[in-house]
Each structure stands twice: as C-alpha cells, then as structure tokens.
C-alpha cells in the first residue's frame, strides 16, 4: 500500500505530463504483476462495487474522531471530498505519522485480504475492520484507502496517459495498447503479463475501438472557412446528434453495444442487439444512440434518452414509450477486418453498402450533407440545427483515417451558438475538488415580475482570478446562510450560456436549461436590467 499511496500522491503533485509518465512507468516496473494489474484497474477508473455504504463510512469516522455529524458535514463542505475529509479528521485524532504507518501488504494482497472480504459482512464488523486499518495508517494512506472503498478513485492522469506508459513498457504503439484495454479490465497477474506480451488482443472479441473524437471548431466572424479548412468538397458534413456516442460490435454471433464512457448498453437497450443478431456479416459501427419519435420521425430530447437509460429495469412499457434507435455514421470493422485506416470517404461508401442489407427501423444511416453551394451553404445549414434538433454539424476530412482519441484537424464539431441570458447571482456554495474551499457553485435568478426566481445553477466559466474575486465578494455580501448555502445580495449579473430550454415541473421557474455555464461577468449591468422569465420562455 505504501508504493501505491506514493504513486497517488506523486501523480497528484505534478502537472507535467512528462513527469506523470515517468512516475507511472517507474511504478509499473517496480511492483509485482499482481500489484500492477490492480493499480491499472483503479487508474482506468474501475471501481470495487458495493463494498461499504458511504453513510456507514461516515458513521465509523465519526466514532473514530469523536465529532458529531454536523461537524463532519461542515468539514466536508469545506474540503469538497469525502474520502479526504474523513482521512483528515481521523488523523487529527490518531496522529499516526508517516513513519508509524504500518501496512506492509502490496496493493493486490491488500485488496484481496482486506477489502474484498468486506463485501457481504455486517456493517458492525466492517466498521471494526476499517477503523483498525485507519488506526494503522497515516493521513495519506487513509485517504487512498477511503478512495478505494468509496469507489471514487480518480487521480490526475487520463486513461490515455496510463495507456501510453504501458505502451512504452510493452514497446508497442499506444493505439494497440488502447485497443487491448478497451472494456473491462480483469485485474490479475496473468492478464497483466498477457497485456504486456501482446496476447490480450486475441482473447476477447467484444472489445470496442478507441473512439475518434472531434475538436470544437471556433471561428471568428472575420475568418473564412475556405482559408481555414480548404475546399468544402474535401469534407464530409454530417449533423451532430445529441445522444449517446456508442459502438455497435457484431462479431461471431455476438452483439455488444458500448458507450463512449465504456458502459455496456446491451441490458438497457436489448432491442438493438436482437436486430443485429439477425443480420448477415460482421461489423463494428460508430454512431449515436438516440431516443426517437417515430410518429413525426424526428429525434427526441436528450433528457428523454436519459430517462430511458436511467431506468434500472427495462420494461416493455418504457421500451414502447421511449423507443431507441442507433444512428450510424462510421464503419470501423467489416467482415472481421479493421478498416479504420481507410479514408473517411471510402468508409462511408462501405457503410452505405452495408446499410443496404441492414434493414430495420431501429438502425439508421446518418445523412451527409449535399455540398452544392460550398461553405456558405454549410454555414447556412448549421443555423438550421435547432429546428432539426441537432447540436450543429460534424466536419470530417474525407481523406483522413479514423483516428485514436482527439486529433486536431481531421474531425471538427461545429456547434450552434448557445443561447445566452443575463441572470443575477443569488446563492453560492463552496465547490468540490479543484474548487474546494472557494465559493464557486452558483445559483442564478431571473426576473418574474418584480421577484427573482432561481433558474439555473452553474459551476464553470469564470477564470481563477474572477472566481477568487467573486468568492471574496460573496464572503462580504452574505445576507443569510442555510447550511452550506449562502444567500447573497442580488447585485452581480452574469451572462449565462446554455444549449436548450425545456418545460420542467421540478424547477421553481417552470423551465430547465441544458449545460448552463457562465459566459462572462456583466460588471456593466445592474441587477434590475437582468433578463426576465418571459424572455427565456420565448425560447421554448
């Protein structure tokens, strides 16, 4: 556990990619295959599910440190991270120092002897075991333990970086390593050795390819698209759908649907797999899972889709009330052959050919835009995105291969401009994670007659300097407090950007907006000139 704790804090300490890579490499090379396998498990964001209840954990910590619930809640509001709060509180009591910390087991042994057996034990026994671990750990190790058992293990390294470190160790291309690591990683020494020797790729047939990601296209008014991107005819233009990105894998009588977040979607959307299994041939499609309105033949809102996917149990009823389709736009594998290195135009041709034989209302081929009229026509099409219920356009270079991860210059997403509204800051709360200890989570209101009604929350969009100065302002302009929430003088006005607006009975204002974020601080505007609910409702 010491080596793994050190790994965590060394990674946490540095912002430099080069150093992180070195730290990861050093760690993997210095520990046993079993420890490396488990470290990889956690670094890839996988978690030990349902080990202990968070409410139990808080109670055990409260017993250990002798502070009541309200104090733990106050500290948590300030720290913004439960695992860290509890570790700090317990340490303040036990005073175990770095040198006195005695947990010799390696990560793998620790997980299998101390953590996994917790599953299924009564909460009292679990509590005794965790508390006795805490008593033998310093603050840093206790924190890592808490992270592991609460399942919120995140450290400042991306999967891409972990993959790169392993690729360097195995001396293979990162893309090869990325492919081997798609899907769930079963942590064992044997699997780790197979991963490094390159045998893992043959083992599993259900793994998806890394998704090719698009860069946002941001162009200023005076910039010309032809100068920026070349001839329009070099590009394939598609709508940018507002659903869940997914890969449909059909190999050897198997059909697997993976989301971009590497979530298996088969259970939630059983109807797609059954269609695929009836079809001929083998393929891997890249596309978007969408909720669909068959009556008017248009896409339904993202929140409808979320409602469907959020259900634990997929009933016939929900399948009927929120039907799902797969909107395909790329072909990655055809007849068992990886075709990602072919050009976009060529892959599209093959995709269209495939679709001629894949007949089902649940599978659709995403349309490409006819290019008569060049960039001007494309720009005009983008402006119609909202009526077509899409987020904007996708621009894919016709001669480019299907890339791994986010590469600049081959795929662009060109979203429509967001809506904006000037709203008044009314409540503030301290943030979590990077924004811990700073009032950075805000609630904004707009006018309904002469009262302000809360209309959205937003966390992001201010620079660090602005955030600090708003934080300071909040501290000296607090009118009242409700737990962690400060009610402030309704004086500051911010321009809030958002993607769409919907009726909502759950919100006081009667509307809900999607992806609200702060565009800028309108220091020039007094609160009385902020926007009204009527003006926002007009966007419905």
């Amino acid at each position: 556990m010491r080596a793994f704790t050190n790994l965590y804090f060394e990674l946490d300490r540095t912002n430099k990619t080069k150093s992180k890579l070195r730290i990861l490499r050093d760690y993997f090379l210095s520990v046993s295959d079993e420890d490396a396998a488990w470290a990889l498990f956690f670094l890839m964001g996988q978690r030990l599910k349902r080990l202990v209840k968070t409410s139990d954990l808080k109670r055990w910590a409260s017993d250990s440190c002798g502070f009541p619930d309200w104090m733990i809640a106050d500290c948590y509001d300030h720290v913004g991270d439960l695992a860290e709060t509890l570790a700090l509180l317990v340490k303040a009591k036990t005073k175990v120092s770095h040198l006195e910390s005695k947990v010799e087991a390696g990560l793998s042994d620790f997980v299998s002897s101390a953590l996994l057996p917790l599953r299924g034990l009564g909460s009292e026994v679990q509590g005794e075991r965790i508390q006795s671990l805490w008593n033998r750990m310093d603050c840093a190790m206790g924190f890592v333990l808490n992270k592991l058992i609460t399942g919120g293990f995140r450290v400042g390294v991306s999967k891409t970086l972990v993959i790169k470190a392993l690729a360097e160790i195995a001396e293979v291309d990162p893309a090869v390593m990325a492919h081997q690591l798609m899907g769930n990683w079963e942590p064992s020494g044997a699997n780790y050795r197979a991963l490094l020797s390159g045998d893992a790729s043959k083992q599993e047939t259900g793994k998806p390819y890394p998704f090719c990601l698009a860069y946002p296209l941001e162009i200023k008014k005076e910039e010309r698209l032809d100068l920026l991107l070349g001839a329009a005819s070099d590009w394939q233009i598609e709508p940018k759908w507002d659903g869940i990105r997914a890969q449909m894998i059909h190999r050897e009588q198997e059909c697997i649907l993976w989301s971009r977040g590497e979530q298996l979607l088969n259970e939630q959307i059983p109807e797609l797999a059954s269609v695929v299994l009836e079809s001929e041939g083998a393929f891997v499609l890249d596309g978007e899972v969408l909720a669909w309105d068959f009556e008017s033949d248009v896409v339904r809102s993202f929140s409808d889709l979320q409602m469907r996917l959020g259900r634990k149990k997929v009933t016939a009823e929900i399948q009927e009330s929120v039907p799902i389709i797969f909107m395909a736009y790329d072909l990655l594998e055809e007849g068992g052959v990886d075709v990602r290195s072919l050009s976009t135009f060529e892959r599209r041709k093959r995709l269209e050919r495939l679709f001629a034989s894949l007949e089902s209302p649940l599978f659709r081929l995403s349309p490409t835009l006819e290019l008569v009229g060049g960039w001007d026509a494309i720009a005009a099409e983008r402006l119609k995105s909202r009526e077509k219920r899409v987020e904007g356009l996708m621009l894919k270079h016709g001669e480019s291969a299907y890339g791994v991860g986010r590469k600049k210059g081959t795929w662009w997403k060109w979203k429509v401009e967001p809506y904006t509204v000037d709203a008044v800051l009314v409540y503030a709360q301290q943030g979590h994670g990077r924004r811990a200890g700073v009032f950075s989570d805000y609630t904004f209101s707009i006018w309904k007659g002469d009262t302000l009604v809360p209309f959205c929350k937003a966390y992001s969009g201010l620079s660090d300097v602005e955030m600090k100065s708003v934080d300071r302002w909040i501290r000296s302009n607090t009118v009242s407090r409700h737990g962690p929430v400060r009610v402030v003088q309704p004086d500051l006005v911010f321009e809030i950007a958002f993607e769409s607006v919907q009726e909502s009975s759950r919100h006081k204002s009667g509307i809900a907006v999607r992806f609200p974020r702060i565009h800028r601080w309108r220091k020039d505007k007094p609160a009385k000139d902020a926007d009204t609910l009527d003006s926002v409702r007009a966007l419905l």
Partner: protein
Amino acid sequence: MSRTQTLVCLREEGLYCPAGDFFIDPWKPVQKALVTHGHSDHARPYMDAYLTSSSGLPIVRERVGRSAHIEGLDFGQTLKINGVQVSFHPAGHLLGSSQIRIEHKGFVCVVGGDYKLEEDRSCEAFECVPCDQFITESTFALPIYSWEPSDSVFQSINEWWRQNEEAGLTSVLFAYALGKAQRVLCGLDPSIGRIGVHGAVDIFNKHYLAAGYPIPETVRASRNTKEQFQGKGIIIAPGSTQNSPWLKQFGERSEAFVSGWMTVRGSRRRRGLDRGFVLSDHVDWKGILKAVEGTGAEFVGVTHGYADALVRWLKETEGKTAYELNTLYHAIASGEDEENGKELS
C-alpha cells in the same frame, strides 16, 4: 451578557471599546486605532492615531505610512485610555503581533487578533492571558486543520530543496511576504544553496534582523541577480508572483506553497503546484480550544474564518457563551497580495 456586549462591540468601522473610545484593528478611518499586528487586513492606513506593540511598531509603520502617528507600548506594560486599562501581550503570529487586553471595572476582555501556539523562531511566543471574554480568530477553525511540529515541516522543505538542487531546478517557495516568509527563512538550511527573496519579502526582513531574529543571508532575486538562481537556489516570494514574468526569468523551477491551506488537496491542485507544505501562522482547531480553555473565558467572540462551526462547538460541547463577530478581516483584499486575500496564513 450586557457587559460583554458593551466593553468591546462591533461597529461599522471595526471592533470598538465605547468606554475607552478606541477601535481595535478598524477597517475604516477612525481617531484612535489599537493595532494587533502588521498584516494589511488588521493595520490599515488613514487612522488619526495608532497604538501598537513596541516590537511590532516598525512593521506597522511600513504598512500604514511614514507620516502616520504611531505610538508603541512594550509587552506587558499598562496604559489608561479614558479610564480603561489596556496592555499588549505576544500573540505568536509574527514579529510584534499582539493580543490586546482591555480591563474596565473589573471585567477583562482579550482581543486575540491573529495568533498561534506553535513554536516560531521568528517571533515572541504566545502568552496565555486570563480573561472573562476572549475574542478569537477562526481562520482554520475546523478539526481537519491540525498542524505538525514546524521542525518536521522545515525538514520536508529542506529535503525538497535539496532534491531540486540535485535535479538542477530552481526551488520557488510561495509564502506570505510578512511573517510566513521570515518564519520559513529561519527554518531553511543555508548549507544547501543560495537563498533569494522577492522585494516584498525583503522589505520586512530588515526589521526582523534589527530585532535580532536569525534570518539567514539572502540575495534580492531580480534581473541583476538572476544568474545566481537559474537552475539552483531557493527563492521565497509572495504567491501573487506565480506565473509572473519576474518569476519566469529564473528558468526551470519546482514551485511550492507554504500555507495552512495546503492541508486540503483542492487548494494545492487549484494553484497548479508541485508541492504544498502545511505550515500556518494561524492557530489550528486544537490550538483554539486550548487557548480558550487557558484564558478561562466564559464569553467567546469569534471573528474571521469558520466561525459557524466553532461557535456551535463552543456552545454545545464546551458550554461557553459563544457568538460570531462579523468582522471584515480577510474579506477585503490585502494590498500587496491581492490574489491571496484568503491566504493570509
């Protein structure tokens, strides 16, 4: 309760003693200001007259201006102001920092200002002053804040510096320019390499040297001396210099912040630091409880910081009559270190 509210109360300008007609650390211009210490949220300019501890006087003068009318009172000496007896006692926060004891008609109130109980080679040690009413700060008044002995922190700092020296990196240690910087300087091991300071730190160093505190030999880090710090040495600078062109001239660096806030990972990460060292010039949770107990005070007023939690704890667990005093310390940006309004530790 009535006496506690009347001997020292809160006014728009700051903490006020009506019987003596003077203010303590006021934030708006007043006639007579008693000042606990030289941090800019406590010692503000434009007061008609100041009274502070003799040993803190040069620093307060540095802060409020050459021409200001300032008088000094030795620690422990008493003075009558309009029939109210006042005296200054060491607060252990920084050189000359004081608690102010105010006695009137047998009732004693001690205004703690900013204070700490930990050992500090760069200032007078905190003195426990018995009283009926104690006014305490609450900058770090949450039990997650629990300081390690300063020697072990200095050991880590020196260790980090030594490693950077070997790796050919300049060590940059961000510290509040007054108090923290000098405390850290007294803990550095000069045998590791050269010690540089930013001008804002240098201004205060001379007062510490004049008072006989063991500040090691330093070089003012600037364009003229930058070669001495490229890839080597340590530079102590205020946090506001992070990302500044001034700092960039020293080349490849390892950057660390030394502050009580570094306890929390989020504040380390937010600043994009290589390291965070936990060392504060404010009192931690246990320290506050110890100080409150030591004074024997029945009434406890809580100023700037995490007052809510402390007030509730003092009431429910310690059986004190505790209440929040909504002062403006820390809420207003401090002049020299604007960005770190909150990090005056």
